[in-house]
């Protein structure tokens, strides 16, 4: 398994496709002076599910924002379906976003609308489809995630798992070519975890879309994804297929997969030596 995962050609070659769905090359991003991402290079081949893993606050969500064009990189390039995202004008960006779906952490459903209206929202905003057709489409999407009966409920009446599924249905409402998932497994019970994981896999294969999953849930990810990238402190430290990751002997990957408290990611937050601090004189 390649220690740095930056061997884009290897991964791309393995998938056997021509233009990758998403390509990041030497991407860097910083909030004012604080650097968040450095030298990120990754390829997401078409039709595959790729997980971006790492501890909290390592910049995973920022990668999604850069792919979606909500943020502009400091340097490097972001290409979606061959187009360079930061260089797109508002019109072109608008069209690109119509072809992408995003599942936000905790769903981000519109709380003043019912489940039905939430899923109908992108359809009503972007198409001129008549209401009867929209109704059918919404019911189909809901059926795909198993919530057709919940169409008239309000988001506040849904459980966490259900809300996540509705958000998934909304993300695929316009049959996008790329779906991004921001922590889809966060805070779910075991059954819902299994459901969401299965849905991501099945929808990806059934609809022929490409999925990018940002998460720190190794167990669920290894069950469904094709490739994984590991990010630590703004850099890619490892990458490979699910099988490779399971067998990897790299310390960082091992710590992550096994859930060990200490390792390349230290347990202790940087502090002065223990003995010194305990016995220090208080002035």
């Amino acid at each position: 398994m390649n220690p740095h995962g930056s061997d884009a050609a290897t991964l791309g070659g393995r998938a056997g496709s021509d233009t990758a769905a998403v390509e990041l090359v030497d991407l860097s991003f910083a909030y004012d002076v604080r650097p968040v991402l450095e030298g990120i290079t990754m390829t997401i081949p078409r039709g595959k599910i790729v997980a971006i893993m790492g501890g909290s606050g390592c910049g995973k969500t920022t990668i999604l924002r850069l792919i979606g064009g909500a943020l502009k990189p400091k340097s490097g390039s972001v290409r979606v379906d061959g187009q360079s995202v930061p260089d797109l004008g508002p019109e072109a960006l608008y069209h690109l976003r119509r072809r992408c779906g995003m599942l936000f952490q905790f769903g981000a459903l519109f709380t003043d609308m019912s489940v039905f209206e939430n899923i109908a929202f992108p359809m009503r905003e972007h198409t001129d489809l008549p209401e009867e057709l929209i109704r059918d489409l919404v019911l189909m999407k809901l059926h795909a995630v198993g919530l057709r009966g919940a169409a008239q409920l309000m988001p506040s009446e849904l459980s966490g798992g259900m809300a996540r599924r509705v958000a998934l249905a909304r993300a695929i409402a316009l049959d996008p070519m790329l779906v991004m998932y921001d922590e889809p497994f966060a805070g779910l019970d075991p059954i819902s975890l299994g459901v969401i994981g299965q849905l991501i896999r099945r929808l990806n294969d059934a609809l022929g879309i490409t999925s990018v999953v940002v998460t720190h849930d190794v167990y669920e990810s290894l069950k469904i994804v094709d490739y994984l990238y590991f990010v630590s402190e703004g850099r890619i430290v490892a990458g490979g297929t699910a099988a490779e990751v399971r067998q990897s002997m790299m310390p960082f990957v091992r710590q992550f997969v096994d859930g060990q408290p200490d390792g390349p990611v230290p347990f202790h937050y940087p502090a002065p030596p223990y003995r010194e601090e305990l016995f220090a004189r208080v002035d």
Partner: protein
Amino acid sequence: MSIDAAQGPSYWLRRLGGAVTGGVARVGYATRFLGAVLWHTPHAFRRIHLTLREIYFSGVLSLVIILMSGMFVGMVLSLQGYETLKRYGSDEQLGILVALALVRELAPVIAGLLFASRAGSAITAEIGLMKATEQLAAMEMMAVDPLARVVAPRFWGGVISMPLLAALFSAFGIFGGYLVGVRLIGIDEGAFWGQMQAGVDFWPDVTDGIIKSFVFGAAVSLIAVFEGYDSKPTAEGVSTATTRTVVISSLAILALDFVMTAFMFRGAA
């Protein structure tokens, strides 16, 4: 423990300077925001139902507090005014007193303050929460501009509701004044209405009041949507933003009131 040596007077000066420049920058940012909101006005009216919904939430739901406050203010004006006017033998002028005080000043200002606390804070909280729960980001990712869909309708809902609320405040206030003045105290009904009609001119008295309430409506609505949109996406952030909306709107209303009154009533004897 070392003492921070920078706590001298220069430190406070720097902080003051920082606060002032920060404040000025914020005003500039808010102005550009207003420009962006106005730019999306056509959308708010093409999808008229979005704006109608906001008129309901800002205007209709404020009716109870506005009407009741209006009535009470009118009643108090009548009571207080009568005492003073009686001393000069001019108690039949009570009608004019109540009507002018309400229509020119009290209705736009008090209705504005009430609107800011009730509807303004609600708008800020709503937008702030939408930001905190990533609903606005979700909209952007779905290629729907939140300024057009969420912000502009709320802005125009407020601008349209305010003058109507102020007029209702005046009307109910005058009615309250009538109840106290004519029914309770016993002033001649004909004198009450007759003097009022003679003394209150549509132009400039009533129209100035309407202009004021439009201006206040625009100010409060802008501040409310801006603070919500600009809030930090945390629980504290939303609560800070709602407080700011009420405080800044109230100050803005009072300051604008002074400026407008100085212009409008400069010429009247």
